[in-house]
């Protein structure tokens, strides 16, 4: 660690991992509710557990992104962070606001939460992923703006590397597109149309910039490959991400009352969206093969390569699977969607944050890399989580294919609920895989506490 202020990232990463545990616990609850419908009912109904699961995911990824930025921006800019105190203050504000929001979901009925937070003044609640009370949303904007100011000032008064500029652009985009969450017209079609300006333009747009810059940074550090080469890759990856992903938004405008031309535009452009993910895979393997040094942090290298592969599988392959309008006509809003959502989020964003943590955490703890035994446990956790996520995806895909056939395709379509009963065995298998994932997460956390011979900073 070259600059003292980089260590603020540690705070963010610890919070991220803590919330990750909460996310997965609720994931396992949801999975059980799929097969034992009355589990925890009426105390924690499915919709509440689902909000907790998805919102914790988003919040911990944001902690992860911000932590990553606080770590890499000063080092790239070759100066201390502009205002470390602000980063610390915002950390606590974000953590408290996030915790209160989750407690609100769990402790009072959602309608009551809407009432106490005065949703009526500016109604924004009750839309998928954007369930946070309006006041929490405002809090998120304040945190995001302070964060942007902080890294912006650091970058502008320091060395302006491509990695830093891409990170800054991605984070700015994240904040800007989040503003669409405040637009909630009564017209349902309009509401849905602009809802995707947050959700799609995040995960298939600006978040890809953040992801690519983190990946590029870690790869430079662990391989020692020339910056020029890495920066060229970085530019072309994010170019392809935006060129395909902006109009690719159209793959959500097939069946929500929007004009028919979206079926063509959305299909064609989103079918190209796997390209940037594939390039990330090529990039990572290429750079690791050309490495100029063997970094002692083997676990971080594994995470980096794993991210590149799993993001391509989850977003690229599973995304392509249902992105063409004639296919999506049948799969829209089924377990196929859930299958893709899981592997894409895990493969791209969960894994890239874990890559950054894997690389930077040992350094912030005064070592160059984790000790051998700690790394072995960490690599075990990598395989447990990644393989179980592959199985979650496969089981949900199986469930989805049957669901589509029984409920939408066959001569004599079954009702939704009858179909769900027929495919129950897949949900049981998903739950088992989910428990393995949880075990993997346990191993991951353990890896931070495994003692062994220290790898000193060279």
């Amino acid at each position, binding site marked *: 660690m070259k600059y003292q202020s980089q260590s603020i990232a540690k705070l963010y990463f610890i919070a991220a991992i803590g919330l990750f545990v909460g996310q997965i616990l609720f994931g396992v609850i949801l999975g059980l*509710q799929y097969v034992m419908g*009355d589990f925890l009912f009426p105390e924690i109904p499915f919709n509440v557990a689902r909000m907790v699961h998805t919102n914790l995911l988003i919040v911990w990824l944001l902690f992860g992104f911000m932590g990553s930025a606080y770590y890499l921006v000063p080092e790239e800019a070759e100066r201390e962070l502009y205002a470390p105190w602000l980063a610390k203050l915002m950390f606590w504000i974000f953590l408290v606001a996030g915790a209160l929001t989750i407690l609100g979901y769990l402790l009072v009925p959602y309608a009551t939460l*809407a009432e106490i937070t005065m949703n009526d003044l500016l109604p924004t609640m009750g839309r998928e992923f954007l369930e946070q009370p309006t006041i929490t949303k405002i809090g998120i904007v304040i945190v995001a703006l302070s964060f942007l100011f902080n890294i912006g000032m650091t970058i502008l008064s320091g060395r302006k590397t491509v990695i830093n500029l891409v990170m800054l652009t991605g984070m700015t985009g994240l904040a800007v597109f989040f503003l669409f969450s405040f637009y909630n017209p009564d017209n349902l079609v309009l509401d849905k149309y602009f809802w995707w300006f947050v959700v799609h333009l995040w995960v298939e747009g600006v978040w890809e910039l953040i992801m690519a810059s983190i990946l590029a940074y870690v790869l430079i550090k662990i391989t020692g490959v020339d910056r020029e080469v890495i920066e060229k*890759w970085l530019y072309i990856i994010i170019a392809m991400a*935006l060129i395909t992903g902006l109009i690719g938004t159209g793959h959500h405008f097939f069946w*929500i009352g929007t004009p028919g031309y979206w079926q063509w535009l959305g299909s064609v452009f989103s079918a190209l969206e796997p390209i940037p993910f594939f390039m990330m895979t090529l990039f990572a393997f290429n750079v690791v093969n050309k490495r100029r040094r063997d970094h002692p942090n083997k676990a971080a290298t594994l995470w980096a390569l794993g991210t590149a592969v799993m993001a391509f599988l989850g977003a690229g392959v599973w995304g392509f699977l249902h992105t063409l309008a004639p296919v999506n006509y049948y799969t829209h*809003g089924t377990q196929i969607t*859930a299958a893709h959502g899981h592997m894409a989020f895990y493969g791209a964003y969960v894994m890239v944050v874990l890559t950054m943590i894997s690389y930077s955490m040992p350094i912030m703890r005064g070592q160059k890399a984790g000790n051998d035994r700690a790394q072995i446990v960490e690599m075990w956790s990598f395989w447990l989580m990644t393989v179980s996520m592959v199985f979650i995806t496969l089981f949900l895909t199986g469930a989805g294919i049957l669901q589509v056939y029984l409920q939408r395709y066959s001569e004599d379509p079954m009702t939704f609920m009858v179909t769900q009963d027929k495919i129950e065995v897949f949900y049981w298998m998903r739950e088992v895989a989910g428990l393995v994932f949880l075990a993997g997460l346990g191993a991951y956390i353990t890896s931070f506490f495994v003692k062994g011979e220290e790898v000193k900073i060279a």
Partner: protein
Amino acid sequence: MRETFTKGMARNIYYGGSVFFFLVLLGLTVDTVRSLPKTDNSQNLTEEVAAGKRLWEINNCIGCHTLLGEGAYFAPELGNVYTRYGENTEAIKIFIKSRPKDGIPGRRSMPQFNFTEEELEQIAQFLKYADGIKTARNWPPNIQG
């Protein structure tokens, strides 16, 4: 990558490409918003429907159901529930009203929301309005959603 393909070229593709396609998205958005009245059933978007949408939101119905295929996958699609229930808002209201408070042993069940008659009517009208939105190819593929 090849030496002939320089970093500068990559950068220009990034700037040019993203600005260009952002503007295209903007243009298409203007066109979409303009042509929505043909399909979005806004002629039936009454005060009552708007109130129903708010109730839909503050009870987080989307946390279990899909609406026009978006939402959660735990409970049935509701974008065509009005059709599925024989174009009868009363039937929808009776269903919502009759959910047992403590659920159904061993099975998924919908919470009892204790809506007033007025609220029930608003929600039913919202679902009727949503059903009236003209989706391409008349999505969903069949009545089961």
